[in-house]
């Protein structure tokens, strides 16, 4: 998945079913981007065919698609192989068996890219399974281990990363992976026929060129250099088989709607294993090329991975306890404490194991995003008062039963990254809130218990969200806010509408979370830079507008609100903008960290984002015969099975089945793994 993708509400992943959450993790930025320069836009009737169009595109964009002889590679590069990194799978893993799981909805397509492709099945077809050039090590921050690339070298001077492909690498249909496939993948991502503007935009802006040296050597030149450039170049971009997409063109959506592409991962999906509307079964690729490679061995152990379509979480739970499913995610307190308590017969008798695993990932930024362009909310005292008036502490302690924790700041959860000294969420305190409101002129309490100012305006704000599952937390903070004399009106909209309202800055307060994929450092530009609040944020000396604080002076009275951006607080603080620009230019962690801490401090002082909550773990229940490594999972796992470290112990499965018939029991297993807990 692409690391820069931050998407609405996806963070509820930790509470909702995997499927629903992933729909959003993938959907990315909604703004349409212009088609890449020079791309062919010929209509279907005149489309010359994929290979001819690819050749024409390469010719037209020869400064992007480059070729060079092997001798052109600098000799002084330091080639890396990731060999020094530890493996994270368990050598005792046993292959075979069928792992039975669920998806909440049958996918609308089997494509893994293009419209509707970001459904619940996509991670199992692509993100969790397919192999990219390199992969981020899930226990070590900013470390790469080999995938399709056997070796790689970074050259910060030229902003280029070189890759040597593994000659063993094969697609599921046995065809070798070569640089021709890489060239195709870039053409594919940048083509307007893909019908996914976000990809077009990303692959036009992120990379300035790719250079092919021979069938197994390639280099990516990035537009910006960052400390994690190797991962950005190698780990975040999928490689698609050129031969399979030979019919790609303007009508490719129709042609490829129900054809799963053969990719490089351990599983494949064949037509025979798709039961439309009912189930999907992945099967292990025969003689998978990476079966014995370091970092890939002892993973992807089940021979078959079956997904049944079950829509309701309660029904999924019933199917799980009946023994029809092997694993069920217990992230929701309701399931962990009520439906499957430790005293549940299946748990007490040891048939089902309950496991809680503390992971280390960037947390979805749950919180109240206060739109300061709305009346009263431009007053910092009111905003800070709302911090003290919003009882997320109660939501954490009593609704999430102490499992959730307040977010310290926007960058909470990043490995090796501190939010900043002393930056913490403000606790619920109606007295402090009232003092601040009173300072802002809201001194009188009306007959309804809501504070008013001298002009008779009530302290009443609407909270907008697009997440139906947030009804209860919202109802809780609404009742609590009355203690501070604030009225919250609740507006629970449909997912898309809710997010759109916030992105168009029509909200007063939005309860929204932006989720990011597991990346190394936080980003601030999208959410806090003034150019994402106003189109005319800065003035050049000649009076024209610019987006950069470094190029001009702040516009004293900006008027044009920039919509469709993630600056949902409409923050426009010139000092912060200069810091963000320096942060984005910084090329080392040492330079970035102090800037990040200062930015977090400004965010805290500015008080436009009321820190929400995070669930710092994933939890699951699974049948006893599902086995895991001794450490259970890896630090950067978002879901229990994301890295496919588990296996089915066939003998144990039989033993459990026999025991259930005979009534024999096992010792109960309720496990907590907190080796990565902060």
């Amino acid at each position: 998945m692409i690391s820069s993708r931050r998407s609405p509400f996806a963070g509820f992943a930790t509470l909702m079913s995997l499927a629903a959450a992933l729909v959003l993790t993938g959907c990315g930025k909604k703004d349409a981007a212009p088609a890449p320069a020079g791309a062919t836009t010929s209509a279907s009737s005149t489309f010359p065919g994929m290979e001819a169009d690819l050749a024409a595109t390469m010719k037209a964009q020869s400064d992007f698609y480059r070729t060079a002889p092997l001798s052109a590679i600098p000799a002084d590069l330091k080639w890396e192989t990731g060999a020094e990194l530890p493996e994270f799978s368990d050598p005792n893993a046993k292959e075979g068996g069928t792992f039975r799981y669920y998806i909440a909805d049958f996918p609308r397509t089997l494509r893994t890219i293009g419209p509707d492709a970001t459904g619940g099945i996509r991670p199992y077809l692509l993100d969790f399974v397919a192999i990219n050039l390199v992969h981020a090590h899930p226990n070590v921050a900013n470390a790469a281990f080999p995938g399709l690339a056997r070796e790689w070298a970074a050259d910060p001077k030229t902003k280029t990363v070189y890759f040597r492909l593994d000659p063993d690498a094969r697609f599921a249909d046995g065809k070798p992976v070569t640089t021709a496939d890489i060239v195709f993948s870039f053409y594919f991502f940048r083509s307007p026929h893909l019908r996914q503007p976000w990809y077009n935009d990303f692959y036009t802006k992120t990379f300035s060129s790719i250079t092919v040296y021979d069938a197994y050597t390639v280099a990516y030149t990035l537009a910006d250099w960052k400390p994690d450039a190797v991962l950005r170049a190698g780990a975040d971009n999928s490689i698609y088989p050129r031969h399979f997409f030979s019919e790609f063109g303007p009508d490719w959506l129709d042609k490829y709607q129900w054809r799963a592409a053969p990719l490089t991962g351990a599983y494949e999906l064949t037509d025979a294993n798709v039961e439309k509307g009912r189930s999907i079964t992945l099967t292990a690729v025969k003689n998978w090329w990476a079966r014995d490679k370091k970092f890939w061995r002892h993973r992807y152990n089940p021979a078959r991975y079956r997904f049944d379509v079950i829509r309701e979480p309660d029904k999924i739970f019933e199917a799980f306890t009946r023994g029809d499913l092997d694993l069920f995610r217990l992230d929701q307190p309701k399931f962990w404490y009520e439906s499957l308590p430790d005293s549940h017969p299946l748990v007490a008798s040891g048939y089902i194991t309950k496991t809680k695993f503390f992971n280390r990932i960037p947390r979805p930024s749950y919180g109240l995003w206060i739109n300061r362009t709305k009346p009263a909310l431009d007053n910092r005292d009111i905003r800070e008062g709302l911090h003290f008036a919003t009882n997320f502490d109660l939501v954490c302690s009593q609704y999430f039963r102490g499992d959730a924790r307040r977010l310290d700041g926007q960058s909470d959860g990043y490995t090796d990254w501190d939010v900043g000294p002393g930056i913490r969420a403000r606790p619920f305190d109606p007295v402090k809130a009232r003092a601040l409101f009173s300072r802002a002129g809201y001194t009188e309490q009306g007959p309804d218990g809501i504070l008013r100012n001298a002009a008779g305006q009530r302290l009443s704000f609407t909270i907008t969200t697009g997440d139906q599952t947030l009804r209860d937390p919202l109802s809780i903070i609404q009742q609590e806010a009355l203690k501070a004399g604030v009225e919250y009106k609740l507006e629970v909209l449909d997912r898309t509408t809710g997010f759109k309202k916030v992105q168009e800055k029509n909200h007063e307060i939005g309860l929204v979370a932006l989720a990011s994929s597991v990346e190394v450092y936080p980003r601030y530009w999208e959410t806090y830079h003034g150019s994402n609040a106003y189109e005319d944020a800065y003035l050049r000396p000649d009076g024209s507008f610019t987006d950069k604080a470094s190029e001009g002076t702040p516009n004293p009275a900006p008027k044009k609100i920039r919509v469709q951006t993630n600056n949902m607080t409409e923050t426009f603080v010139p000092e912060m903008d200069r810091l963000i620009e320096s942060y984005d230019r910084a090329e080392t962690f040492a330079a970035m960290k102090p800037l990040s801490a200062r930015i977090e401090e400004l965010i805290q002082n500015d008080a436009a984002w009321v820190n929400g909550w995070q669930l710092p773990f994933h939890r699951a229940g699974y049948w006893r015969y599902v086995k895991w490594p001794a450490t259970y999972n890896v630090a950067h796992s978002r879901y229990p099975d994301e890295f496919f470290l588990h296996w089915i112990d066939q003998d144990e499965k039989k033993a459990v089945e026999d025991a259930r018939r005979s009534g024999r029991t096992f010792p109960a297993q309720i496990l907590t793994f907190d080796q990565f807990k902060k």
Partner: protein
Amino acid sequence: MKLLPRFLSDPQTKKKFARFRAIKRGYYSFLVLAGLTVLAIVAELLVNNRALVVRYEGEWFFPTYGAIHTGKEFGLDYAYEVNYRDLDARFKADGGRNRVVLPPVPYSPLENCYVGETFRPRPPDWSKGHYFGTDQINRDILARLLYGFRNALLFSSGFFAMTYLLGIVFGCLMGYFGGTFDLIMQRVIEVWSNIPFLFVVIFVASILTPNLGLLLVIVGLFSWMSMTQYMRTSTYREKSRDYVHAAEVLGASTGRIIFNHILPNVLSTVVTFIPFTVAGAISALTSLDFLGFGLPPPTPSCGELLRQGTANLNAPWIVISAFTALVLVLSLVTFVGEAVRDAFDPKKFTTYQ
């Protein structure tokens, strides 16, 4: 307009009411329903976290309706609304002359009834006054049902008024004028009826957060068409009667003929539909709330409880309470409806005016 008093004082109508009273099931259902409606109207006196009467330091308070009283007014240290249950306990412990009289069920439909404890559904607890238990964020189910019922009643009265007004006006006009107007209106109605109403409501509700009024307008706009058909045919029939011609000859205006002469004679058809309209409105509101497209949280409603109940099957008291309440109300309304239909059966009585 003197339409209603005239309709009610009509001896034929009186006969119909007598017949209605004779149909026992419907009549008793009506009494129960009327009783429930009265309870819902004065819900604040029965189910409420505000006390009925407080006597504090010789002063009397009646907090049920009107402005809130803060904790500070009763010598406590907080500026928000006083918790009367705590106040009651405190006064009792003090043993002084201060008194609090709480309603029979001392909980509001919105508040967290287990302060300081986990949010989870709790089974009925008669000692605490949670006769139907609490929902997933510790709110009293009985309170939510009663206030939800009140919302449903409000909604269905508004719905009835709106659809009948539109339906009767358009139906009468179509029947009376006939010809091109009738033809065009019929086509318009056909097209309008073919719009799937639930989808439109869901669509609109997902863009705007509906309040009771807006929801009423949206649902009402798509529900008045069937009434026009009945009114149209009845008016057609009445129009050819001699008394209408007589009125025309006497120079009565169109409005007068429709509303003073024709309408009273077709009203009996309308009356029989009312209970079923009410039942339909309650079901519509419940299903919208169930789907999450109804009234915004935390508005109490039966549909919202059903939704919670189906998501918490391990807390059966939620779904049982909501389901029973819904079935009870809908059955009562339907029984009344059947009785009205029998009592007003035009085959038994025909009126000419």
